């Protein structure tokens, strides 16, 4: 089962875990991203996430399908927040349940690595002296 969610609601890690619960699962790996208080030493005030939502969901679906296929995952849940987040809040939660634990780690890492490369979501960092779209420039 695949669960994809792009939402303005606060992300709840337990809700992503619930989505992948399965009696034949031996292990679940979860990645929880959190907003860091600094970037290269500069204090971060808040982040704002913007998404091209229908395509973001489609790209996340592709990642989840690849995870199911390549690591034989039982279930995959990917949640991403859009809107403003404070330091310590959660932009992304990914859960992967597998029969055996090694696959769960590899699969979850692939999912977050690929999400960061392909999913059309953009993050703006707000500093005390201005704001910047992350990764926009070399």
């Amino acid at each position: 089962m695949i669960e994809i969610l792009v939402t303005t609601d606060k992300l709840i890690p337990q809700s992503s875990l619930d989505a992948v619960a399965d009696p034949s699962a031996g292990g679940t790996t979860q990645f929880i991203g959190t907003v860091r208080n600094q970037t290269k030493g500069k204090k971060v005030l808040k982040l704002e996430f913007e998404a091209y939502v229908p395509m973001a969901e489609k790209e996340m679906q592709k990642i989840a399908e690849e995870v199911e296929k390549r690591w034989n995952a039982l279930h995959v849940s990917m949640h991403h927040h859009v809107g403003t987040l404070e330091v310590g809040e959660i932009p992304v939660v990914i859960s992967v349940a597998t029969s055996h634990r090694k696959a769960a780690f590899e699969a979850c890492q692939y999912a977050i690595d690929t999400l960061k490369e392909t999913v059309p979501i953009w993050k703006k960092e707000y500093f005390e002296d201005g704001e910047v779209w992350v990764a926009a420039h070399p």
Partner: protein
Amino acid sequence: MNLTLIAYGIAKDILKGSESTFSIKGQPTIGDIKAKLIADHPAFAELQSLKFAVNQDYQSDDFKVSENDEIVIIPPVSGG
């Protein structure tokens, strides 16, 4: 052909709006659109990468767009 490009993130800042409409001869490719966009707004050339999605899928430079396609400028993504 009249085209509307949809913009997110820094593309929205460069275009000063979430959409940009322009006319282009014949049936353009993504490469044609990219060239025109950079000619009109050189700031696009300074980005780390510049991709396009047509109807919610990434498409490469040789892809030909059609009249009612949903064309979105994809500046470097930074989700997660």
